[in-house]
């Protein structure tokens, strides 16, 4: 599959995401924030970083980039979209995902190898994992506290839209230890930790993140 990776001004992990996509067996296509053009891709990754310097709110300005109009329309048609870290923040600001991400409750940037449990393996990004599988991948954020009002939170839990949950410690004050969520349709996933940094033994903490990038292929041939 052709998987587009959007580069915004201030994206950091776009090249790592492209590399993870290739290692996962897909073709990576570079997309540019200023072009309202998805170049015929089958899926999209919004990578981590500090787009627009996190000015105003994380992801608030990126949401209105020319490419995002196309991303939102494609997501609403059912195209798989994965937002990692800053990409998750952009998806929340775009209202493609419920909730929002606020400053860590302890007010410090956190960077650690984080244990997660995959709570929903029915999305196109998590189907390579088993339900309840525990994985360890890097987490690095300053504003990763997931919040939503009580109704939205109850809906996320009730409908199985929590994709991943923090284990051992809650690193940023996220409600219900939520590390990642999906939309009602299940095609849009936001994740605060970084699977793209854990796809090969040489450079990562392990290869536990690879499933996010092989799931698409497995889904295509399932």
């Amino acid at each position, binding site marked *: 599959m052709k998987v587009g990776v959007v580069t915004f001004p201030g994206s950091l992990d776009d090249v790592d995401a492209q590399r993870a996509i290739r290692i996962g067996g897909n073709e990576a296509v570079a997309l540019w924030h200023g072009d309202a053009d998805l170049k015929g891709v089958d899926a999209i990754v919004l990578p981590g970083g500090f787009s627009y310097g996190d000015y*105003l*709110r994380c992801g*608030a*300005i990126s949401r*209105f980039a020319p490419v995002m109009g196309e991303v939102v329309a494609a997501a609403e048609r059912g195209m798989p979209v994965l937002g990692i870290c800053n990409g998750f923040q952009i998806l*929340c*600001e775009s209202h493609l995902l*419920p*909730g*929002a991400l*606020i*400053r*860590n*409750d*302890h*007010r410090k940037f956190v960077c650690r190898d984080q244990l997660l449990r995959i709570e929903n393996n029915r999305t196109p990004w998590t189907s390579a994992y088993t339900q309840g599988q525990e994985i360890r991948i890097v987490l690095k954020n300053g504003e990763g*506290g997931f*919040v*939503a*009002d009580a109704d939205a939170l109850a809906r996320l839990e009730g409908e199985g839209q929590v994709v991943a949950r923090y284990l051992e410690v809650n690193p940023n*004050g996220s409600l219900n230890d939520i590390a990642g969520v999906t939309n009602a349709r299940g095609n849009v996933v936001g994740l605060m930790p970084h699977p793209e940094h854990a796809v090969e033994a040489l450079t990562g903490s392990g290869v536990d993140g690879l499933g996010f990038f092989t799931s698409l292929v497995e889904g295509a041939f399932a």
Partner: protein
Amino acid sequence: MPKPEILDPQGKAVQGALPRLGFSGVTDVRQGKRFEIQFEGEVTDAVLAEVEKMAETLLSNPVIENYIVSVEQ
């Protein structure tokens, strides 16, 4: 402003600093943002409606923040 039910870590940090400086009696601090937007001419209802729209779409995130629009001449 962050909604009352949303944790405000920055406000909490400020609240924690005040007693260290000898300011007592503070029970809560919330930190928000203020935007000063200038227009030429009179601020009509149409202009105000535009500003409301700005506040709702870009300046605030209605999921976690409330806003108030006020006019100063």
